[in-house]
């Protein structure tokens, strides 16, 4: 590992913070220029709370809206990580989400 991995881990963490994701639920590291993020993706913000409040009558609708919201966040996360100078790749092990080639982020089970 070069000195940059120590620095890159901080950069990846900052992207995660800036997207409003809970860092305490994630294991974040960079190994030889490859970002490794494992754990649970969770946003505790007003937008997510509003979805739950506005669509309280349908759990299915809530899950659909939340999936859309989280998918956008994950796309932004992956995009911002991959454009960082020094990053060669990214591996995600996220509860309930998988990044599939050609399909993007796919929800594998409930939130």
């Amino acid at each position: 590992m070069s000195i940059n991995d120590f620095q890159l881990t901080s950069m990846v963490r900052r992207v995660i913070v800036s997207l409003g994701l809970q860092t305490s639920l994630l294991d974040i590291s960079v190994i030889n220029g490859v970002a490794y993020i494992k754990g649970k993706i969770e946003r505790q913000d007003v937008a997510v709370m509003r979805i739950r409040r506005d669509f309280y009558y349908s759990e299915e609708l809530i899950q659909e809206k939340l999936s859309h919201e989280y998918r956008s966040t994950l796309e932004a996360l992956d995009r911002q990580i991959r454009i960082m100078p020094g990053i060669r790749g990214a591996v995600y092990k996220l509860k309930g989400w998988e990044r599939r080639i050609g399909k993007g982020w796919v929800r594998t089970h409930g939130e």
Partner: protein
Amino acid sequence: MMTENIRTLIKREEITALAREMEQDSVEAEAFFKEMLNQGKGYPDVLFPFSILLHCSGRKDESRKYMTELIKINDHYDKYLSARNHMETGDCHAPDKSSYPAIQFLSLSEQAEKLESVMEESFFKGPLAGEYYLILGRIAQTESRWRKAFLYFFAAFFASAKKAEVLLALGQLCYAQGELTLAGEALREGLSTQPEHEKIGLELSYVESELGHFDRARELLHEVYERHPDWPDVAYRLAEYYFSENDIGKALDYCDKALSVNSRYFSANMLKFRLLMLKDDTSVVETFIDGIIDPSLAGTFRIFHSMKKKDPVEDVFALLEKEPGLKQEMMEGLWDDVVRTVSPNYLKTLIRFLQDKKSISEKEALDALERYIR
């Protein structure tokens, strides 16, 4: 731009506008924490902001109920105990003019002095009011309302004179927007005010490492670790630092410290595996792998260790079949350094064997040869 959001001097009319919007912001914030409580998220800590919001909107009995519930679960946190005490005694401890510490960051003290009369008219004072404005600021931050968040943090300073807490909030606000220089300025001033404030120390260590101030980042991590040896993330960051310095012994030591608190810590397990592979002691590696709780991670480690030992390629193939997710990780480059510790001749044979078994395509085999054997 973020810098404009906080570098611009605060105007009187902004303060009066904020005071007008405060009630609605408080209602929204309360609904947010209520929803969190309903979902059981952030429990029990979420009881703290919820209780403060209720208290500051006049529902004192309800507020005390939630604070009591919180303290029943966590009775050793000074912040909670002190809040309950303030709630019960009605003691607001409003800071007087002489008790405000100076904040140099963005000349906030000077700005507060100039706006004193409008601040007095617009905001409550006291420790609970300070917490209240910090909560409203954090909520505004999650909504990307940076200027409003900044103004609430400024109000929190006016209300409570708590310099370190306000500078931490401002540092985090700048950090989240990638304004690292500003974040560093706020957090350094916060830490100089309260050197034992571990949250500021840890946050600043991330800022300093991103700014390339690695020695300072390490010092901060050590200071936090000494107070919190039970924080595995701090121990792991130190392991990462020492690995970057090629100090394998210390890196291994801090990996072990992180794993002694959380044996399932993936990053620490992965780094420890790499370190042991570098030490090239087969029996130590095997003992380590046998102790891994996660079967998939242990399976992955066995594959590379088996390659390193030049086990028959059929055996490695059988192990690979059990870990289908590994191919994607290898394509991303996660294991490149480990693969390069394997003998090139052995690797060539294995790659060709995998191609024959249709486990990888011809193109993938050529890419792998190009990637690992030059």
